[in-house]
């Protein structure tokens, strides 16, 4: 590699010398310019990506400080602070990639100032829209800028991030600093592993649950009418067929002003809803032996057919609804149920956030919200962030100590209770927290539902090329919603899946898929 580099440098130097020696003419300028650019392009573009160095040299003073703090009864967060203060040299700043918008409030207003106060190390939050988080971090890696110290990823990206060497393996750090891994919910603890290595500390329990209006469900007239119509009690649905019945019931009652339910159906978001129900019905993404895609199975057809039919009793235009549209309709009391969405809606529904979130519609449903695991029993853990140390960071140990501190039981509990930061419970101590359970009347039921949902949650596909697979799934669903026959849409989804697998290599994907199958939450049947 060094020889190749020096060879290119020599060529470039010689061309530069010729360039300078030559007479100035338009032709020679153009020729030389093109030559230089070509040399630079050929020589400079394709530096093979190296894997991160295996064994970091940790600061003995920091490790000793952390151990001493723990021996003296300090908690994990305090130990991380002691270790950071013992770093020599101590970095002035840590550049932290974070989702922007609401999520950015956490580093900006909460943990950033606190970490700086405790350690003297400034946190520089670099906000990126969710849709650009993946690409911007990969692009920085390819550019070799070393601009980031702490990376943000969702588990589905792990395979691609590891393939490109973006993340520092955390094994040695964890061995020395002992974060409280046993306190993680087992689902999330397992999501931190990839290929037998831990690359990130999990930080956001994004398991989807169903929300329903208890006042409407407990209304005597509604109960009686529903019983008369369907011959069973009006209760939170346990199957999608029950869900559709309840949704249709309330939609009919609403007369075009209110509806029985809504789910996120917009391009880019709807794949999760398909992925969950599909696997609950016994569907599998691939044939393990051949890696042929199997979306167009009976489970796939049944799922997508029902989803398209269900849209008819959701608000008109639900095909374009994302998280915010569902939230807005729910908060204004237009929906009897949300057919699954992320956890923060519970906090906002209770009006705990009015002072922080000007853009969240004022709640009209406070005190009337019930929670349930999704129909068919297995909710989807959709997205959910992990924090990782950039392999190119010049301050890896400090970066690790920051994410150790952030995800520690003590600090993370405060962060998952923040009304504005969108982090959600993921540690066993979060679910059990008396402080959290006393936040509003039904907060205990909310936390219990989140834990139950996580206990049996399905996880997003963790595989090289996961973004492409997800997009293909998404496109199959949105095509069917727009009128493409379900069988055809799923066949096209299969073809797109197969094209990705063929390009990356079926054997390699087979091995990666076997790892996915070994994860808790890949499938339950």
């Amino acid at each position, binding site marked *: 590699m060094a020889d190749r580099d020096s060879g290119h440098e020599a060529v470039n130097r010689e061309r530069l010398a010729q360039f*300078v020696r030559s*007479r*100035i003419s338009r032709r020679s*300028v153009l020729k030389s*310019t*093109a030559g*230089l*650019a*070509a040399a*630079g*392009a*050929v020589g*400079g*573009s*394709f530096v*093979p*990506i190296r894997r991160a160095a295996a064994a970091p040299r940790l600061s003995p003073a920091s490790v000793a400080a952390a151990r001493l703090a723990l021996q003296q009864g300090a908690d994990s967060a305090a130990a991380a602070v002691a270790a950071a203060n013992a770093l020599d040299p101590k970095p002035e700043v840590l550049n932290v990639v974070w989702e922007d918008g609401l999520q950015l409030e956490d580093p900006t207003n909460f943990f950033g100032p606190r970490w700086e106060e405790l350690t003297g190390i400034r946190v520089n939050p670099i906000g990126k829209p969710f849709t650009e988080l*993946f*690409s911007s971090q*990969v*692009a920085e890696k390819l550019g070799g800028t070393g601009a980031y110290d702490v990376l943000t990823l969702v588990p589905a990206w792990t*395979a*691609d991030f590891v*393939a*490109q060497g973006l993340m520092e393996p955390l094994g040695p750090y964890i061995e020395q600093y002992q974060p409280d891994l046993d306190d993680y919910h087992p689902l999330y603890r397992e999501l931190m592993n990839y290929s037998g290595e831990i690359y990130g500390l999990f930080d956001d329990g994004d398991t989807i649950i169903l929300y329903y209006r208890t006042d409407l469900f407990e209304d005597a007239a509604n109960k009686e009418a529903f019983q008369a119509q369907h011959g069973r009690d009006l209760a939170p649905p346990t199957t999608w067929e029950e869900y559709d019945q309840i949704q249709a019931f309330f939609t009919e009652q609403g007369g075009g002003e209110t509806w029985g339910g809504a789910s996120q159906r*917009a*391009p*880019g978001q709807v794949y999760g809803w398909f992925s969950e129900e599909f696997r609950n019905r016994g569907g599998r993404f691939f044939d393990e032996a051949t890696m042929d895609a199997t979306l167009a199975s009976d489970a796939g057809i049944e799922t997508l057919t029902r989803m398209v039919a269900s849209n008819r009793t959701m*608000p*008109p*235009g639900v*095909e*374009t609804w994302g998280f915010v549209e569902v939230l807005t309709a729910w908060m204004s009391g237009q929906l009897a149920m949300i057919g699954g969405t992320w956890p923060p809606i519970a906090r906002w529904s209770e009006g705990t956030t009015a002072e922080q979130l000007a853009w969240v519609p004022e709640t009209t449903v406070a005190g009337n919200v019930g929670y349930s695991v999704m129909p068919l029993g297995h909710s989807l853990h959709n997205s959910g962030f992990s924090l990782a140390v950039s392999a190119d960071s010049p301050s890896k140990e400090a970066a690790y100590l920051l994410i150790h501190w952030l995800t520690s039981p003590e600090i993370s509990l405060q962060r998952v209770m923040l009304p504005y930061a969108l982090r959600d419970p993921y540690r066993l101590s979060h679910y059990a927290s008396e402080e959290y359970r006393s936040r509003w009347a039904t907060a205990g039921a909310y936390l219990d539902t989140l834990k139950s949902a996580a206990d049996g949650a399905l996880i997003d596909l963790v595989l*090289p*090329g996961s*973004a*492409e697979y997800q*997009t293909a799934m*998404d*496109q*199959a669903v*949105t*095509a069917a*919603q*727009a*009128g*493409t026959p379900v069988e055809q*849409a799923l066949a*096209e989804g299969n073809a797109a899946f197969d094209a990705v697998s063929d*390009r*990356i290599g079926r054997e*390699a994907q087979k091995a990666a898929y076997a790892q996915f199958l070994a994860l808790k939450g890949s499938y339950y049947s």
Partner: protein
Amino acid sequence: MTTSIPLEGQPVVSPRGLGWSARRRRDGWLMVAPAVLLILALGVYPLISSLVLSFRRWDLQSHETPFIGIANYAEAVADARHWGSWANTLAIVVSAVSLELLLGFGLALLLLGDFRGKRLLLPLLMLPVMMVPVVVGLTWRMLWDNQYGPINHLLGLVAGRDVNIVWLAHRDTALAAMVVTDVWQWTPFMLLVLLAGLTGVNPELYEAASLDGAGWWASLRDISLPGIAPVVAVAVLFRALDAFKLFDLVFMFTQGGPGTSTESISWYIYQLGFRFFRLGYASAVSYVAVVILTVVATVYVARFLREIPE
């Protein structure tokens, strides 16, 4: 001590050793160096780099970037989604630019004469052109909203009943929405260019035509249109090339959906390159676009611009 006097034709050597012509060359290089470096860094280097890249397999999932010849180009030729994005782009460009030309020309004729408030009206009409495309997309996305958007409301008033068209959830209506939005934003550009063209037509020609008994239509057909033909040709070329880069409206309206039915070529390349990091293939698709557009533009220029009499 000897004194040498330079002979004619020999370089004058300064006390520091550089001749006048050498200093001139050096100074010349110093002066053009910033521009050359800028062109190298921002223009030539990415162009050549991406061309080289288009002959390699460069995927996110692999550490290797092997040379694969024209395989990326072969895949692009056989890629139905690629040509689907071309079809969508062409449909939008042809519809939008045609409408912008007709409306822009009509408005230019209206604004040709002097009237009160013209100085105020023209800048107001130019406002859409000055807006950031993403802001336009966001604003119009709200206008197209089936439930709360004023477009359905206005259509309802005209139809005398509730209208609930989900504009952005179906290919045809979503493409129509993109065309209308593009026409709203870019018709003023056509108006401005065509108005400048019309203003430049010699008024004596109209007077002469009037004396010969020519009416409004005859003057328009035989004087105005031939007079501004080069301007029309250039305006259409500029607008069409710009419209081919359509990205913002797809991003804000549909994300290419439902399915892949509203993808434009720019959106597809963005997906390939910056979402899936298939940089080799994305480069090849980009070069296919560059080649096609260059050929079309060259033919267009040859056909419409070179044949226009001076």
